């Protein structure tokens, strides 16, 4: 089974924010929540690069490890989902997440922040695929319809790619050979490059498609 991953080729990203807008629109994400965002490094200096970042769907998700109510699950594709019925909005997943992916509808309401929201790899939530409840809580389930995440589908320069990690790695490596340079896949060592205690999603493991 394919191991779903994101890969943002920072040499190609032109900071157009189409991925951010597409995500917001596709999932009716409320104001203030940023499932996907663009971060520009070395802004205005030589070597400026922009990187589109969302939940990377880690092999060994830190959010799932620190969750006090154990509301996370990982699908057979390696997509990290969570249950908004179980989430208590404590905010611990944001402290542990290397990528700042978890988002909360409120910032301060005497410690209550509402149900956490994050990128679902366009795969909805634990509810039945395509159900109304699933759409209301987590947004569209494109994966169940055989489609890839809209952010990557929308990317005009094909900088952001989503799909089988092995294929993404191959495309990126071929690209880098053709143009002569590549600085690595942002976040891959943090999300997929660590030993994760015998999980099938460990680097090179059966769940990762060998990437």
């Amino acid at each position, binding site marked *: 089974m394919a191991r779903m991953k994101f890969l943002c080729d920072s040499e190609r990203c032109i900071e157009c924010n189409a991925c951010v807008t597409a995500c917001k629109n596709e999932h009716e994400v409320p104001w203030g929540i940023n499932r996907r965002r663009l*971060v520009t490094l070395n802004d205005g200096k030589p070597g400026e690069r922009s990187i589109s970042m969302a939940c990377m769907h880690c092999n060994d998700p830190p959010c799932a490890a620190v969750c006090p*109510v154990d*509301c996370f699950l990982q699908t057979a594709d390696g997509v990290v989902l969570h249950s908004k019925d179980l989430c208590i909005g404590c905010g611990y997943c944001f402290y542990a997440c290397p990528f700042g992916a978890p988002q909360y509808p409120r910032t301060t309401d*005497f410690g209550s922040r509402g149900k956490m929201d994050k990128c679902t790899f366009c795969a909805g939530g634990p509810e039945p695929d395509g159900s109304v409840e699933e759409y209301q809580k987590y947004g569209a389930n494109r994966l169940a319809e055989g489609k890839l995440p809209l952010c990557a589908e929308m990317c005009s320069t094909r900088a952001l790619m989503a799909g089988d990690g092995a294929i993404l790695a191959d495309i990126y490596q071929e690209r880098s050979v053709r143009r002569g340079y590549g600085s690595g896949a942002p976040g891959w060592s943090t999300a997929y490059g660590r030993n994760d205690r015998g999980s099938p999603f460990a680097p090179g493991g059966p769940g990762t498609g060998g990437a």
Partner: protein
Amino acid sequence: MRPTMRPLHALLLIALMAVAGLAAPTFAQAQLTQVPGPSSPTTKEQVPLYVPQDDKVVGRVSIPDEKLAVLVQPEGREWREWRTHTLRLAIGGLAIGMIVVLAAFFLYRGTIRIHGGKAGRLVLRFNWADRFAHWTTAVSFLTMALTGVILTFGRPLLIPLIGHQAFTPLAEYSKSIHNFVSVPFVVGLVMILALWLRDNVPEKADWIWIRTAGGLLSKAGGHHPEAGRFNAGQKMVFWSIVLGGMALAATGYLMMVPFVFTGIGGMQIIHVIHGLLAAALIAAVIGHIYIGTIGMEGAFDAMGCGEVDENWAMEHHRRWYQEQLRKGYVEGRQPAE
């Protein structure tokens, strides 16, 4: 046409020439920081995918939420280790360690009795304001300790017992109670600080108490080092609760307004401080509860009904007792002199 427009025309011309120059491949490549060169990969295997990354990467975002400018924060890994292992070890280890020590002490010493037996005459030790302040602090502290422990240990201990569906509301209520009960806790802290600060200033006699461990270990002697209203042990509890409680409240309120005063690294440190203080105070309070209940005969009356037996006061707080006697506060005794 004004004459000032002429230099602008010249500028536009220069700009156009520059753009034309950029179109020439050699010139364009010189503008880039990364160009194909001797280090360029010639095969796909040479292209790095996993680039080791151990430092925080911060950039710029165009959205209002500025904390999201942090692209990668590997420190989350250390915080995860803290939250899933170290925190549980600190709270559980210190609490269980304290209980073990107390159990050993109880087997060795038993309940510390009043040597002269009960006199039957009572002396007021804590008035209603003292007791109100104590029990406000005590009940809110225990409530927060319990709810905090539910949130910390619920996943490994309670979810296997009651299941996810039942644990989520329990955790949610625990979190709310933990937050709201902090208000009476702080009120109690301010009250005990105002009421008892004067009697908790360290003095010379405390040194003797600490050196002899308050006579706790001398089984047969029954000799107590002299003490005023509070002995050195009680003063230590007072200062741990007041200072530790204030720090717990401060870090707790900072966590209720996340990212208002600090970024992600600061929030992680605040959580660590809160957890360590909680572990230390829970252990200290277990010891405090022990000596105030089963550990010592007559001690609970002080905070229970507010009045203690004359002989208990004479044995444990002689200097304070003599003062009360002088003022005529001891039931059935005439003021001295």
